[in-house]
C-alpha cells in the first residue's frame, strides 16, 4: 500500500491552496512529484491514491504520468545522475565523459547500480549550456565537468 509521508502531507495541504477549489486537478503534477521524490518511482498504488484525492480516474492519472520523463515506473537509485547530451554539451565533449561515468559505475546508460545507489540517464538540455559538459545529480547541477571532476564528485557521495 502506498501512503504519503507526514512531510508530504504538509506539502499537499499547501499545494492544494495554490489552485481554485474546483480546479484541484492542477495539483496532479505536484503530487506526482511528491511521490517520485518519496518512492523514487511512481507505482499504480500511488496513482490510485492521487486519483482518490483529486477526483481523477486512475487511467487519467496514468495517462498524464506517462507523458512526463521525470516520473519513472521503476525505482531509480539514491542518486539519479542526469547527464546532458544536447548540443552545447556535446560540442564540449560530453559523450566521452558520459561513457567514462558509465564505465566508472559499471552500468549501462539508463541503468542502475545493483546496490541502488546510482542511476545514470542520458538527458536533454538542462539550461546550463554555458557550463557544459554538465550533469544534475538529484537537485544539484555540476558544470564544467572533466573526468577527474566526475570521479571526485561520485566518490564524495555516500
Amino acid at each position, binding site marked *: 500500500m502506498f501512503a504519503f509521508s507526514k512531510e508530504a502531507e504538509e506539502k499537499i495541504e499547501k499545494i492544494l491552496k495554490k489552485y481554485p477549489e474546483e480546479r484541484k486537478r492542477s495539483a496532479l*503534477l505536484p503530487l506526482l512529484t511528491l511521490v517520485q521524490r518519496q518512492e523514487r518511482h511512481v507505482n499504480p498504488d500511488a496513482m490510485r491514491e492521487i486519483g482518490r484525492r483529486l477526483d481523477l480516474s486512475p487511467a487519467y492519472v496514468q495517462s498524464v504520468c506517462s507523458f*512526463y*520523463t521525470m516520473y519513472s515506473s521503476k525505482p531509480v537509485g539514491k542518486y539519479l545522475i542526469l547527464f546532458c547530451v544536447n548540443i552545447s554539451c556535446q560540442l564540449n565533449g560530453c559523450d566521452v565523459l558520459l561513457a567514462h561515468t558509465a564505465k566508472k559505475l559499471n552500468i549501462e546508460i539508463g541503468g542502475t547500480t545493483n546496490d541502488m545507489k546510482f542511476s545514470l540517464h542520458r538527458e536533454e*538540455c538542462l539550461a546550463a549550456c554555458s557550463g557544459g559538459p554538465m550533469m544534475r545529480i538529484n537537485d544539484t547541477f555540476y558544470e564544467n565537468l572533466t573526468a577527474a571532476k566526475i570521479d571526485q564528485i561520485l566518490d564524495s557521495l555516500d
Partner: protein
Amino acid sequence: MTQILFHNINKKNLHTLEVYEKEGGYKGLKKAFAKEPGEIVEMVKASGLRGRGGAGFPTGLKWSFLAKDVFPRYLCCNADESEPGTCKDRELLQKNPHLLLEGMILCSYACKIETGYIYLRGEFYDLCEIMEGAIEEAYAKGYLGQNILGSGFNLDIHTHLGAGAYICGEESALLNSLEGGRGEPRMKPPFPAVQGLYEKPTVINNVETLCVVPFIVNNGPEKHAALGTEKSKGTKLVSVSGHVKKPGNYEIELGTPVREIIYDLAGGIRDDNQLKAYIPGGSSVPMVTADLVDTPYDYESLQAIGTMLGSGALIVIDDTVNIVETALRLTSFYMHESCGKCTPCREGTRWMWQLLQQIHTGKGQPEFVEKLEDICDNMSFKCFCPLGDAAVAPVISSIQKFRADYDELIAKLKADTAV
C-alpha cells in the same frame, strides 16, 4: 555597454529582499500604483519591449489583447527554459528572484490580474525553492497579498513545477500542464489572452521579459526605447555556448555585432580554431555560416539573413565539426520531445533521425539528402505547433549551407565500398 538586467547580478545576496531593496528594488510599485493600470500598459507599449521567450511578440500589445471585462485573469510566467543552448532565465531566477516578482506585480497591476503562477521546468527544483523563499519574503513585507502598499490591489503568486517535457515551454501546452493534463499544445485561436488558464484571459510571458518591466516603470519607456535599434529596443541576455573560450550569459544592447559577442565578450574561438557556423537563437532557428559574423544581433538583422533571434542562445561551432553530427544531435532531441499529437512531427522527426544516423555512421546513400529535404518540406508549416518547424530548422539549414559535410560522409562510403 548599458545593462538593465545584469548590472548588479553578481552582487552578494542579491536574492534576499534586503539586498534587493538596497539596490533600489520594489521602487517601481509605488510609481505604478500612482498611475492607472492602463497607463502602465501604454508605457510598456511605448518602451518597444518584445517578448524574450522566443517569438519576440510586442509585450505591451499582448497585454492590451486581454478580453475586456472578463475576470478573473491570470498571469503565467514561463520559466520552463528548455530551448537547447539557453540558460539565461536560470541565472535570473537563481540570483535575482525579486526582480522577477517585481516584474510580475507590475504586469498584474497593469492587467488587473490577481493570481500569478511561475511555471518552472521540473529540473529547476532548487530554483523553485529560491523562488518560494523570495515569495515568502515579499508577502511578509506586504508586496504580495491583500491591499498591496495600501493601493487596494491584491495579488497572489505561486510556483508550479513541471516534470520534464520541452513542449511545455510552448504556451498552450504549458497551460494544459498547469491544469494537470498532458503537455500537448492547444488549437489557437482562442489565444490565451482571450481563453487561457481555466478558460480565463491569461498573460504568458518569459522570465526575462517580465524582469525588464521594473526598469521601464522606474526610468520611463523612453529610456528603454533609446537602447537598441529601430525595431529591436533594449538589451538582450545572450547565452553563449559551444566552442568559445568564455561561455556565459552576456547582456548586450540589441544591435551589437555577433562578432563582438563571440570575440570580445566570449573571448573568441577555443584553441584559436576557425569559426565554422553559429546558431543565433537556440536550437530551433536556422544555423548560419561564419562569413555572416558581422551581422548585428537584433530581430530584424537576423531575420534578414534567414534566421531568428529566438531565445537568445548563441551556439558557436568551430571548424573541427562535421555539421551532420550537429543536425543529428538536434534531430534526436526533437524526436525525443515531439509530443506525438500530430503525424508530420511524430513520424517526420523519427525518419529524419534515422536518415541522419545512417549518414553519420557511414551508411548513407546519395539520395538520403534529397529524402531529408523532402521530409522537411512535408513538415514545414504542416505541423500542429511550432515544434515541428523548429525540428526542420537545423536539418534544412545544415543541408543548404553545409552540403559538403553531407557529401563528404557519403563519398567516404562510396570510396569504402569501392575498395
